[in-house]
Protein backbone atom coordinates (compact mmCIF):
# COMPACT_ATOMS: atom_id res chain seq x y z
CA UNK A 1 0.00 0.00 0.00
CA UNK A 2 1.34 3.42 -0.94
CA UNK A 3 0.04 4.73 2.41
CA UNK A 4 2.80 2.92 4.30
CA UNK A 5 5.66 3.93 2.03
CA UNK A 6 7.86 6.26 4.13
CA UNK A 7 9.16 7.90 0.95
CA UNK A 8 5.87 9.81 0.66
CA UNK A 9 5.69 10.87 4.31
CA UNK A 10 7.84 13.96 4.06
CA UNK A 11 6.21 15.62 1.01
CA UNK A 12 2.69 14.96 2.34
CA UNK A 13 3.47 16.26 5.81
CA UNK A 14 5.15 19.33 4.31
CA UNK A 15 2.20 20.19 2.09
CA UNK A 16 -0.25 19.32 4.85
CA UNK A 17 1.51 21.85 7.07
CA UNK A 18 1.60 24.49 4.32
CA UNK A 19 -2.03 24.11 3.27
CA UNK A 20 -3.42 23.67 6.75
CA UNK A 21 -1.60 26.69 8.16
CA UNK A 22 -2.77 28.71 5.15
CA UNK A 23 -6.33 27.51 5.73
CA UNK A 24 -6.11 28.32 9.44
CA UNK A 25 -4.89 31.84 8.77
CA UNK A 26 -7.54 32.42 6.08
CA UNK A 27 -10.28 31.12 8.37
CA UNK A 28 -9.11 32.97 11.48
CA UNK A 29 -8.40 36.29 9.77
CA UNK A 30 -10.85 36.46 6.87
CA UNK A 31 -13.69 33.98 6.59
CA UNK A 32 -14.82 33.41 10.17
CA UNK A 33 -14.81 37.09 11.24
CA UNK A 34 -16.92 37.84 8.16
CA UNK A 35 -19.51 35.17 8.89
CA UNK A 36 -19.44 36.04 12.58
CA UNK A 37 -20.08 39.70 11.77
CA UNK A 38 -23.04 38.80 9.57
CA UNK A 39 -24.52 36.59 12.30
CA UNK A 40 -23.88 39.19 15.00
CA UNK A 41 -25.48 41.89 12.91
CA UNK A 42 -28.55 39.76 12.30
CA UNK A 43 -28.79 38.96 16.01
CA UNK A 44 -28.45 42.65 16.84
CA UNK A 45 -31.14 43.58 14.35
CA UNK A 46 -33.48 40.92 15.72
CA UNK A 47 -32.85 42.12 19.28
CA UNK A 48 -33.41 45.72 18.18
CA UNK A 49 -36.69 44.84 16.55
CA UNK A 50 -37.78 42.85 19.57
CA UNK A 51 -36.93 45.82 21.79
CA UNK A 52 -38.88 48.12 19.52
CA UNK A 53 -41.83 45.75 19.51
CA UNK A 54 -41.76 45.57 23.30
CA UNK A 55 -41.62 49.35 23.50
CA UNK A 56 -44.55 49.75 21.11
CA UNK A 57 -46.50 47.18 23.07
CA UNK A 58 -45.83 49.07 26.29
CA UNK A 59 -46.98 52.28 24.62
CA UNK A 60 -50.15 50.63 23.36
CA UNK A 61 -50.84 49.27 26.81
CA UNK A 62 -50.31 52.70 28.35
CA UNK A 63 -52.73 54.19 25.81
CA UNK A 64 -55.31 51.52 26.63
CA UNK A 65 -54.85 52.18 30.34
CA UNK A 66 -55.24 55.94 29.81
CA UNK A 67 -58.35 55.40 27.72
CA UNK A 68 -59.84 53.13 30.34
CA UNK A 69 -59.02 55.59 33.08
CA UNK A 70 -60.63 58.42 31.11
CA UNK A 71 -63.66 56.24 30.51
CA UNK A 72 -63.95 55.37 34.19
CA UNK A 73 -63.53 59.01 35.14
CA UNK A 74 -66.18 60.27 32.76
CA UNK A 75 -68.46 57.47 33.86
CA UNK A 76 -68.12 58.41 37.49
CA UNK A 77 -68.50 62.07 36.58
CA UNK A 78 -71.70 61.34 34.70
CA UNK A 79 -72.86 59.31 37.63
CA UNK A 80 -72.30 62.14 40.04
CA UNK A 81 -73.98 64.63 37.71
CA UNK A 82 -77.02 62.39 37.44
CA UNK A 83 -77.08 61.88 41.16
CA UNK A 84 -76.77 65.60 41.83
CA UNK A 85 -79.53 66.45 39.37
CA UNK A 86 -81.72 63.75 40.89
CA UNK A 87 -81.13 65.11 44.34
CA UNK A 88 -81.82 68.67 43.28
CA UNK A 89 -85.04 67.70 41.54
CA UNK A 90 -86.15 65.65 44.52
CA UNK A 91 -85.47 68.56 46.79
CA UNK A 92 -87.39 70.94 44.52
CA UNK A 93 -90.29 68.57 44.30
CA UNK A 94 -90.35 68.19 48.04
CA UNK A 95 -90.26 71.94 48.52
CA UNK A 96 -93.03 72.50 46.11
CA UNK A 97 -95.12 69.79 47.72
CA UNK A 98 -94.51 71.37 51.11
CA UNK A 99 -95.47 74.82 49.81
CA UNK A 100 -98.55 73.45 48.19
CA UNK A 101 -99.48 71.57 51.34
CA UNK A 102 -99.03 74.70 53.40
CA UNK A 103 -101.12 76.75 51.01
CA UNK A 104 -103.83 74.16 50.92
CA UNK A 105 -103.82 73.90 54.69
CA UNK A 106 -104.16 77.65 54.89
CA UNK A 107 -107.05 77.65 52.45
CA UNK A 108 -108.71 74.81 54.30
CA UNK A 109 -108.30 76.68 57.54
CA UNK A 110 -109.76 79.87 56.00
CA UNK A 111 -112.62 77.88 54.57
CA UNK A 112 -113.27 76.31 57.92
CA UNK A 113 -113.23 79.70 59.60
CA UNK A 114 -115.65 80.98 57.03
CA UNK A 115 -117.92 77.99 57.49
CA UNK A 116 -117.78 78.41 61.24
CA UNK A 117 -118.69 82.09 60.92
CA UNK A 118 -121.54 81.26 58.57
CA UNK A 119 -122.74 78.61 60.97
CA UNK A 120 -122.61 80.97 63.91
CA UNK A 121 -124.48 83.56 61.97
CA UNK A 122 -127.01 80.97 60.92
CA UNK A 123 -127.41 79.75 64.45
CA UNK A 124 -127.88 83.26 65.75
CA UNK A 125 -130.56 83.75 63.13
CA UNK A 126 -132.17 80.45 64.13
CA UNK A 127 -132.29 81.61 67.79
CA UNK A 128 -133.82 84.89 66.90
CA UNK A 129 -136.34 83.24 64.60
CA UNK A 130 -137.04 80.65 67.28
CA UNK A 131 -137.53 83.37 69.86
CA UNK A 132 -139.83 85.28 67.58
CA UNK A 133 -141.77 82.18 66.63
CA UNK A 134 -141.99 81.11 70.24
CA UNK A 135 -143.10 84.65 71.28
CA UNK A 136 -145.71 84.74 68.51
CA UNK A 137 -146.92 81.23 69.34
CA UNK A 138 -147.22 81.98 73.04
CA UNK A 139 -149.04 85.25 72.23
CA UNK A 140 -151.41 83.48 69.92
CA UNK A 141 -152.11 80.55 72.22
CA UNK A 142 -152.02 82.17 75.60
CA UNK A 143 -152.63 85.76 74.64
CA UNK A 144 -150.54 88.61 75.90
CA UNK A 145 -146.82 88.63 75.84
CA UNK A 146 -144.74 85.88 77.20
CA UNK A 147 -142.07 86.34 79.76
CA UNK A 148 -138.97 87.23 77.71
CA UNK A 149 -136.53 85.60 80.11
CA UNK A 150 -138.39 82.26 80.21
CA UNK A 151 -138.53 82.21 76.42
CA UNK A 152 -134.81 82.77 76.17
CA UNK A 153 -134.06 79.92 78.50
CA UNK A 154 -136.46 77.57 76.74
CA UNK A 155 -135.01 78.30 73.28
CA UNK A 156 -131.46 77.97 74.60
CA UNK A 157 -132.22 74.58 76.15
CA UNK A 158 -133.99 73.43 72.98
CA UNK A 159 -131.03 74.44 70.89
CA UNK A 160 -128.69 72.76 73.31
CA UNK A 161 -130.76 69.60 73.06
CA UNK A 162 -130.18 69.64 69.26
CA UNK A 163 -126.51 69.85 69.64
CA UNK A 164 -125.93 73.56 69.35
Amino acid sequence: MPQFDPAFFAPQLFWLAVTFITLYVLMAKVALPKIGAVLDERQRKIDDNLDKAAQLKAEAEAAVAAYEKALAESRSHAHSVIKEAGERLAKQAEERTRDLNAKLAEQIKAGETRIAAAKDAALTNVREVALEVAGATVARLVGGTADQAKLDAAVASALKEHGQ
Partner: protein
Amino acid sequence: MANPIEQFKIKPIIPLEIGGVDVSFTNSAVMMVISVVLITAFLTLSVRSRALVPGRWQSMAEVFYEFIASMLRDNVGSAGRKYFPFIFSLFMFVMFGNVLGMIPGAFTYTSHVIVTFGMAIVVFIGVTIIGFARHGTHFLRMFFPEGAPILTAVILVPIELISYFSRPFSLAVRLFANMTVGHIILKVLGGFVVTLGGFYVLPGIVPFAFLGAVTVLEFGIALLQAYVFTILSCIYLHDAIHMH
Protein backbone atom coordinates in the same frame (compact mmCIF):
# COMPACT_ATOMS: atom_id res chain seq x y z
CA MET B 1 -9.63 -5.46 -13.19
CA ALA B 2 -7.91 -2.28 -12.08
CA ASN B 3 -5.76 -2.57 -9.02
CA PRO B 4 -7.85 -1.12 -6.13
CA ILE B 5 -4.65 0.13 -4.45
CA GLU B 6 -3.67 2.11 -7.54
CA GLN B 7 -5.86 5.08 -6.53
CA PHE B 8 -3.80 5.75 -3.39
CA LYS B 9 -0.56 6.14 -5.29
CA ILE B 10 1.31 9.37 -4.81
CA LYS B 11 2.45 10.96 -8.05
CA PRO B 12 4.95 13.79 -7.84
CA ILE B 13 4.03 16.65 -10.12
CA ILE B 14 6.73 19.19 -9.32
CA PRO B 15 9.79 17.58 -7.75
CA LEU B 16 11.09 19.74 -4.92
CA GLU B 17 13.74 19.31 -2.30
CA ILE B 18 14.49 21.47 0.73
CA GLY B 19 17.60 20.72 2.76
CA GLY B 20 17.86 17.21 1.40
CA VAL B 21 14.25 16.43 2.27
CA ASP B 22 11.85 15.52 -0.51
CA VAL B 23 8.91 18.00 -0.47
CA SER B 24 7.64 17.38 -4.00
CA PHE B 25 4.33 18.89 -5.00
CA THR B 26 2.25 15.75 -5.52
CA ASN B 27 -1.30 14.84 -6.50
CA SER B 28 -2.03 14.77 -2.76
CA ALA B 29 -0.79 18.34 -2.38
CA VAL B 30 -2.93 19.38 -5.38
CA MET B 31 -6.07 18.20 -3.60
CA MET B 32 -5.03 19.92 -0.40
CA VAL B 33 -4.56 23.19 -2.26
CA ILE B 34 -7.89 22.73 -4.07
CA SER B 35 -9.58 22.11 -0.72
CA VAL B 36 -8.14 25.27 0.81
CA VAL B 37 -9.09 27.33 -2.24
CA LEU B 38 -12.63 25.93 -2.37
CA ILE B 39 -13.22 26.31 1.36
CA THR B 40 -11.99 29.89 1.35
CA ALA B 41 -13.91 30.79 -1.80
CA PHE B 42 -17.08 29.20 -0.49
CA LEU B 43 -16.94 30.90 2.89
CA THR B 44 -15.92 34.35 1.70
CA LEU B 45 -17.95 34.66 -1.50
CA SER B 46 -21.12 33.33 0.10
CA VAL B 47 -21.25 36.05 2.75
CA ARG B 48 -20.05 38.80 0.44
CA SER B 49 -23.51 40.37 0.21
CA ARG B 50 -23.90 40.23 4.03
CA ALA B 51 -27.60 39.66 3.49
CA LEU B 52 -29.89 39.94 6.48
CA VAL B 53 -32.00 37.17 5.03
CA PRO B 54 -29.39 34.73 3.74
CA GLY B 55 -29.49 33.12 0.31
CA ARG B 56 -28.64 29.49 -0.37
CA TRP B 57 -24.87 29.79 -0.27
CA GLN B 58 -24.82 32.13 2.68
CA SER B 59 -27.16 29.82 4.58
CA MET B 60 -24.79 26.93 4.01
CA ALA B 61 -21.79 28.91 5.22
CA GLU B 62 -23.76 29.99 8.28
CA VAL B 63 -24.87 26.42 8.94
CA PHE B 64 -21.25 25.23 9.01
CA TYR B 65 -20.25 28.11 11.24
CA GLU B 66 -23.10 27.56 13.68
CA PHE B 67 -22.62 23.79 13.60
CA ILE B 68 -18.97 23.92 14.63
CA ALA B 69 -19.55 26.80 17.04
CA SER B 70 -22.29 24.92 18.86
CA MET B 71 -20.26 21.70 18.84
CA LEU B 72 -17.40 23.56 20.51
CA ARG B 73 -19.74 25.33 22.94
CA ASP B 74 -21.50 22.10 23.95
CA ASN B 75 -18.35 20.02 24.33
CA VAL B 76 -15.77 22.49 25.59
CA GLY B 77 -17.73 25.48 26.87
CA SER B 78 -16.85 29.14 26.61
CA ALA B 79 -13.15 28.44 27.28
CA GLY B 80 -12.99 26.74 23.87
CA ARG B 81 -13.89 29.94 21.99
CA LYS B 82 -10.19 30.64 21.33
CA TYR B 83 -9.76 27.37 19.48
CA PHE B 84 -12.77 27.86 17.21
CA PRO B 85 -10.75 28.79 14.09
CA PHE B 86 -8.57 25.72 14.53
CA ILE B 87 -11.45 23.29 15.10
CA PHE B 88 -13.37 24.87 12.21
CA SER B 89 -10.37 24.59 9.86
CA LEU B 90 -9.87 21.00 10.94
CA PHE B 91 -13.47 20.08 10.20
CA MET B 92 -13.57 21.82 6.83
CA PHE B 93 -10.19 20.41 5.78
CA VAL B 94 -11.15 16.84 6.65
CA MET B 95 -14.66 17.15 5.22
CA PHE B 96 -13.50 18.64 1.92
CA GLY B 97 -10.75 16.00 1.71
CA ASN B 98 -13.31 13.24 2.20
CA VAL B 99 -15.99 14.66 -0.10
CA LEU B 100 -13.68 15.80 -2.90
CA GLY B 101 -12.19 12.30 -2.79
CA MET B 102 -15.59 10.98 -3.88
CA ILE B 103 -15.16 12.62 -7.28
CA PRO B 104 -14.15 9.80 -9.63
CA GLY B 105 -10.45 9.97 -10.36
CA ALA B 106 -9.77 12.45 -7.57
CA PHE B 107 -7.17 11.74 -4.95
CA THR B 108 -8.29 11.41 -1.31
CA TYR B 109 -5.63 12.84 0.99
CA THR B 110 -7.52 11.71 4.10
CA SER B 111 -6.96 8.12 2.97
CA HIS B 112 -3.28 8.54 3.75
CA VAL B 113 -2.41 7.64 7.31
CA ILE B 114 0.46 10.11 7.46
CA VAL B 115 -1.92 12.99 6.69
CA THR B 116 -4.52 11.94 9.27
CA PHE B 117 -1.73 11.21 11.76
CA GLY B 118 -0.22 14.63 11.09
CA MET B 119 -3.51 16.29 12.05
CA ALA B 120 -4.09 13.94 14.98
CA ILE B 121 -0.64 14.54 16.44
CA VAL B 122 -1.11 18.31 16.19
CA VAL B 123 -4.39 17.95 18.11
CA PHE B 124 -2.72 15.63 20.63
CA ILE B 125 0.34 17.81 21.27
CA GLY B 126 -1.73 20.99 21.28
CA VAL B 127 -4.20 19.56 23.78
CA THR B 128 -1.39 18.32 26.03
CA ILE B 129 0.29 21.73 25.98
CA ILE B 130 -3.04 23.43 26.78
CA GLY B 131 -3.55 20.99 29.66
CA PHE B 132 -0.16 21.67 31.23
CA ALA B 133 -0.44 25.39 30.61
CA ARG B 134 -3.81 25.60 32.39
CA HIS B 135 -3.24 23.14 35.22
CA GLY B 136 0.55 22.81 35.57
CA THR B 137 1.65 19.54 37.13
CA HIS B 138 -1.91 19.06 38.36
CA PHE B 139 -2.66 17.95 34.78
CA LEU B 140 -0.92 14.65 35.68
CA ARG B 141 -4.03 13.95 37.78
CA MET B 142 -5.54 12.93 34.42
CA PHE B 143 -3.68 9.64 34.86
CA PHE B 144 -4.62 9.03 38.48
CA PRO B 145 -7.96 10.47 39.62
CA GLU B 146 -8.26 12.07 43.04
CA GLY B 147 -9.71 9.87 45.76
CA ALA B 148 -8.70 6.55 44.22
CA PRO B 149 -6.90 4.18 46.62
CA ILE B 150 -3.13 4.52 46.19
CA LEU B 151 -2.75 0.79 45.57
CA THR B 152 -4.88 0.98 42.43
CA ALA B 153 -2.25 3.28 40.91
CA VAL B 154 -0.36 0.22 39.76
CA ILE B 155 -3.23 -0.63 37.43
CA LEU B 156 -4.87 2.75 36.84
CA VAL B 157 -1.84 4.78 35.82
CA PRO B 158 -0.68 2.44 33.03
CA ILE B 159 -4.23 2.13 31.72
CA GLU B 160 -4.77 5.88 31.71
CA LEU B 161 -1.37 6.45 30.11
CA ILE B 162 -2.03 3.93 27.39
CA SER B 163 -5.48 5.31 26.69
CA TYR B 164 -4.11 8.86 26.61
CA PHE B 165 -1.22 8.09 24.28
CA SER B 166 -3.31 5.94 21.99
CA ARG B 167 -5.56 8.92 21.25
CA PRO B 168 -3.63 10.26 18.23
CA PHE B 169 -3.35 6.78 16.78
CA SER B 170 -7.03 5.94 17.15
CA LEU B 171 -7.95 9.37 15.78
CA ALA B 172 -5.64 8.97 12.78
CA VAL B 173 -6.37 5.32 12.05
CA ARG B 174 -10.16 5.73 12.30
CA LEU B 175 -10.27 8.34 9.55
CA PHE B 176 -7.58 6.75 7.37
CA ALA B 177 -9.09 3.25 7.59
CA ASN B 178 -12.62 4.44 6.85
CA MET B 179 -11.52 6.37 3.79
CA THR B 180 -9.16 3.70 2.48
CA VAL B 181 -11.60 0.81 2.91
CA GLY B 182 -14.48 2.79 1.43
CA HIS B 183 -12.49 3.65 -1.67
CA ILE B 184 -11.23 0.08 -2.07
CA ILE B 185 -14.81 -1.23 -1.88
CA LEU B 186 -15.95 1.32 -4.48
CA LYS B 187 -13.09 0.36 -6.78
CA VAL B 188 -13.70 -3.38 -6.40
CA LEU B 189 -17.43 -2.99 -7.01
CA GLY B 190 -16.69 -0.79 -10.01
CA GLY B 191 -14.43 -3.54 -11.32
CA PHE B 192 -17.24 -6.07 -10.94
CA VAL B 193 -19.63 -3.86 -12.88
CA VAL B 194 -17.19 -3.59 -15.77
CA THR B 195 -16.13 -7.26 -15.84
CA LEU B 196 -19.58 -8.80 -15.35
CA GLY B 197 -21.35 -6.20 -17.50
CA GLY B 198 -18.82 -7.01 -20.22
CA PHE B 199 -20.25 -10.51 -20.55
CA TYR B 200 -23.93 -9.78 -20.17
CA VAL B 201 -25.87 -6.70 -19.20
CA LEU B 202 -27.97 -8.43 -16.52
CA PRO B 203 -25.20 -9.70 -14.20
CA GLY B 204 -23.64 -6.26 -14.37
CA ILE B 205 -26.76 -4.66 -12.93
CA VAL B 206 -26.43 -6.35 -9.55
CA PRO B 207 -22.96 -4.98 -8.69
CA PHE B 208 -24.03 -1.66 -10.22
CA ALA B 209 -26.95 -1.41 -7.80
CA PHE B 210 -24.58 -2.25 -4.98
CA LEU B 211 -22.15 0.37 -6.20
CA GLY B 212 -24.90 2.99 -6.18
CA ALA B 213 -25.91 2.12 -2.62
CA VAL B 214 -22.31 2.03 -1.38
CA THR B 215 -21.60 5.38 -3.04
CA VAL B 216 -24.45 6.94 -1.07
CA LEU B 217 -23.12 5.26 2.07
CA GLU B 218 -19.62 6.57 1.35
CA PHE B 219 -20.89 10.14 1.08
CA GLY B 220 -22.49 9.65 4.50
CA ILE B 221 -19.23 8.25 5.87
CA ALA B 222 -17.27 11.14 4.36
CA LEU B 223 -19.38 13.62 6.35
CA LEU B 224 -19.66 11.43 9.44
CA GLN B 225 -15.92 10.83 9.73
CA ALA B 226 -15.20 14.54 9.45
CA TYR B 227 -17.71 15.05 12.26
CA VAL B 228 -16.19 12.26 14.38
CA PHE B 229 -12.65 13.57 13.91
CA THR B 230 -13.75 17.06 14.95
CA ILE B 231 -15.91 16.08 17.90
CA LEU B 232 -13.19 13.82 19.32
CA SER B 233 -10.77 16.72 19.06
CA CYS B 234 -13.34 18.81 20.96
CA ILE B 235 -13.64 16.14 23.65
CA TYR B 236 -9.84 15.95 24.06
CA LEU B 237 -9.81 19.72 24.30
CA HIS B 238 -12.50 19.55 26.97
CA ASP B 239 -10.42 17.07 28.96
CA ALA B 240 -7.41 19.35 28.79
CA ILE B 241 -9.35 22.44 29.85
CA HIS B 242 -11.68 20.99 32.48
CA MET B 243 -9.83 17.72 33.30
CA HIS B 244 -12.25 14.82 33.87
